[in-house]
């Protein structure tokens, strides 16, 4: 079964995405903090990860987490969501091979797309990351 990890400091968002992905027959793990997410990632090795860029009460933010994931695993699909005024972090994220960025709050189509991708997409062996 496909494993997906959701990382967001809003518990309701985690809950919501988890429910949607479980309907698509995925095994979903959630984490509210970056450190928690990293531990879970190392243990479970999910095929797809969705990360909120700003994680409060964490030791490091979503982009840091992305870096760590990428250093360990190049085949994991990584999607990120953020508010729209994060120019520098976006560039940083792109540099580390993020596979998609979604602006919060997402439209219905964007949300559907994100969930679909998390559930099914394979990462192309892209040249970046």
């Amino acid at each position: 079964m496909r494993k997906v990890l959701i990382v967001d400091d809003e518990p309701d968002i985690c809950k919501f995405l988890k429910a949607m992905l479980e309907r698509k027959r995925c095994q979903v793990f959630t984490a509210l903090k970056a450190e928690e997410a990293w531990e879970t990632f190392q243990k479970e090795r999910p095929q797809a990860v969705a990360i909120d860029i700003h994680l409060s009460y964490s030791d490091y933010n979503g982009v840091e987490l992305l870096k760590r994931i990428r250093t360990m695993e190049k085949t994991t699909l990584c999607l990120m969501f953020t508010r729209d005024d994060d120019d520098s972090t976006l560039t940083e994220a792109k540099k580390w091979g993020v596979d998609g960025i979604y602006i919060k709050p997402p439209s219905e189509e964007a949300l559907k797309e994100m969930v679909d991708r998390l559930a099914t997409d394979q990462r192309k062996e892209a040249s970046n990351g």
Partner: protein
Amino acid sequence: MSFLAFSGLINFIFSLFIGIVIFQRNPSDVRNRSYFYTALSVALYSFGYFFWQISISSAQAALWFKILTTGIILINVTFVHFVFAFVDVAQRNQRKIFFLYLTGLIFIFLNISSLLFGNLEPRHNLGFWPTPTLFFNAYLIVWFGQCFYGFSWLLRGIKTSAGSQREQRKYLTLGAVVGFIGGATNWPMWYGINFPPYFNILISVYIAIVAYAIIKYHLMGIRLAVTKVGIFFVVFALTLGIPFWVGYQTRSWLLSTSLAILLAICGPVIHRRFQRKAEEALQKEQFTMRRALREFAETLPHLKDTAKLVNELCEGAYEIIQPKFCGVYLFDYDKDAYVLKQFLSEDEHPLPDKIAKDSALVIAAALQSESLALDKVPNIIGFGKESYLLPFFRDEMLNGFLLLGPKETSDVYDASDVDIFEILRAQCVLAFENCLFWQDEKIRLSREEQIKRHQTMDHFSSSMAHEIDNPATGIRGVVSLIRDNIAEKYKDKFSPEDYAEMVDWMDTVVHNAKRISDLVAAVRAFSKQDTGEFHHLSLDAVLNSLLLIMGPQFKHNDVYFSTEIEKDIVVYGNQIYLEEALVNLMENSLHAVRDNVGKGRKKEIAFKVYRLTGGDLFRMEISDNGYGITKDPGFIENIFVDYVTTKASTEGSGMGLSRVRKVIQMHKGKIWAESEGKETGARFIVELPSYHGPADPVKTSR
């Protein structure tokens, strides 16, 4: 009149006039003076030469010949003296000069005593020529010796100079060579060799070359004066000379008189015309350039932006003055040096990007306080001589400068040019002051605008918040309705797990809708204009509202925010004011940790609230690990004073620490700051009296 006589006449007129002009320009300068003596000697020689040539008897010729020979002797002596003066060694060689004149005097004495030559006899149809004696042979050797001596000094002078000075000396040497050769062509005839000294006229060529060097290279600085006098003299000489010559040749006084009258009428007209033409031609470029530069300079103080000013200045100067290169340097406080802001040049002439403030150039410029000719500054490499520096001063400090390279046309900058430079310089100083003023204005205006915008935002957010609250309340109400009333009805249509899940989701909706309302309430409470009344407040309520507002800020800035709050403290005060004060302190900390990431630190802000033992007081501590407060004595106590700031005052529009302190004092409390120094973070501590009764039932929030 023979050609030789004519040559004598011309030589006489030219040398006399040039000598007078140069002398009169600067009688105190030893160079001008010694040149005048040379010219006088030549004039004497030529005067004698003319009359000697037109003599009709041997006795008459002999008299004039003595005079011209005196001239010859004096020419050499004064020539060497002049060379000494011109290459600036006259002071050192006073004894040699004295010896020179002594030698001259001896030979003049011999000359007058008719010991230099015997009787004159007509030779080769070229007038009466002398028979040289032994003394004369000796003199001839001395003559050549003096010539070579003088020339050797001139050549030395050329080697040790550069730029326009060098050019001048070269021209002078050339002229002198030509003149002496011309004069020397007379010697063969002394010894009976049939070599007509027609080259005697070369002496006038020498005069012409020197005159040219004067005009073109400001030899001793007397350009236009020479031309004007020259024109006058030429016209005068022609106006008088032509009738005179015609009369002399034709012996017709009628003819010559009528010619004289005719020329007397036309003369002044011709003279004026030539004067004007000469002025225009000679001065035209200069005049146009100077006027253009003056007009350009006047446009500069209208500019409001320093960068634009620098640009315009450089381009204008380059276009109008046409130097080989042109650069503007301004002092940069961060780099502590003069930085090249803009430069233009024909041929990629490299100017250094930075000039240290203790370099020879800068020191010389600072001392000068006016346009500085770089020739006067020793050890300036890379700028070339003939360059000028226009310094800009502000409050007695050298703010920047304009560097002008030598003119493209290789003319030198003369005194009138420098006068215009001064005008340009003065206007630039004004212009820079102006730009600074406008810059300050811009900052002031933008701050005013910012404040206005904030006020608008306040009104905006207040009504907006209300609008957002309505649908949120609606959602809460409706979903609660569905959950509590409608869903119940269909409970048995669902499996227990499905029903539980559905209720759970509806709870989630209600919960999130309430969150919206809470946030809205916090914003509204914060932006409300308060009556300023004091109440007994639950500190928890105040802090909840506060943290709702600050939370997103911390999250957005990746700040690790931790809290340790003792509950159930009641305080007597005004919620709005307290929130405002605390928000300001937190924003301060936010600002302080802004650069932490660049310095390899995580951003951390901690908020602690605790009672002090005894129970009457409690403290609120806001600490951060940001840039801290300097431990300079007296500084940390003063940060609560108006207008003292730890970072640029253009940042942030907050009320400032002075107002925070006022608020705390209003609440009968104390506030102070602690820090271990720069980069070690800071701690702001607020101490307030607590109240032991209950909080007022009417809360101002929610």
